[in-house]
């Protein structure tokens, strides 16, 4: 099946296109690949540097457990998750998620589902370095609402 790791946490800047190409290659029965790239915004000159802390061995295990549940739930062929940790400058990629499925509805929903969880419930600690100093931040109300959409089964 996959010849690449499914989940990577990395302190290095990475290039989402290369990941997408690798993920799409050599697929004969996958009709649909949905993907998402999360980028650090400059917030119009507020220029917040983002810093993400993970607990290696704990964070990746939690992501793997959730992603495997998503694979079953949506009948995925495959997924790929790459998440930056450490200091992230505006415009840099924070997260890449790709999902492969026979048809597009499952691929889209699984990608959306994984992102909602990663943004609100994954074990990261996030700090913004802004003009007024540093602050640790928590999930937004929108993040919680997005993630809760999936707690009840949808058709």
């Amino acid at each position, binding site marked *: 099946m996959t010849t690449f790791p499914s989940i990577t946490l990395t302190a290095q800047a990475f290039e989402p296109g290369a990941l997408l190409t690798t993920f799409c290659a050599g697929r004969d029965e996958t009709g649909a690949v949905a993907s998402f790239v999360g980028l650090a915004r400059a917030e119009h000159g507020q220029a917040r540097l983002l810093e993400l*802390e993970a607990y290696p061995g*704990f964070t990746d*295990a939690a992501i793997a457990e959730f992603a495997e549940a998503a694979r079953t739930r949506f009948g995925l062929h495959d997924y790929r998750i790459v998440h930056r940790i450490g200091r992230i400058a505006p415009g840099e990629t924070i*997260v890449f998620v790709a999902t492969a499925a026979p048809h597009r509805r499952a691929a889209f929903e699984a990608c959306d589902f994984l992102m909602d969880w990663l943004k609100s419930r994954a074990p*990261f*600690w*996030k700090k913004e370095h802004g003009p007024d100093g540093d602050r*640790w931040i*928590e999930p937004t109300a929108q*993040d919680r609402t997005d993630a809760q959409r999936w707690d009840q089964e949808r058709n």
Partner: protein
Amino acid sequence: MAKVLLFGRLADQAGWRERPVEAASITEVRAALADEDPALGEALDGPGVQVAVDKAIVRGEAVLTAASEVAFLPPMSGG
């Protein structure tokens, strides 16, 4: 003796992220850290702070060995 890890704002508050602590249970870890730094002790008991032993969340007490890794996890922000 156990290896204690702090994450997020807890590490910033304490001024360290990892150190050995002489303790045979989570309660003893909390007591040792609070004894030395009462504000940190209070923060570790604060709302939403979870404890993991050897990378698995533990609710309540756990017996620690010399090889145990105890992590205090403030509320997670997501990525």
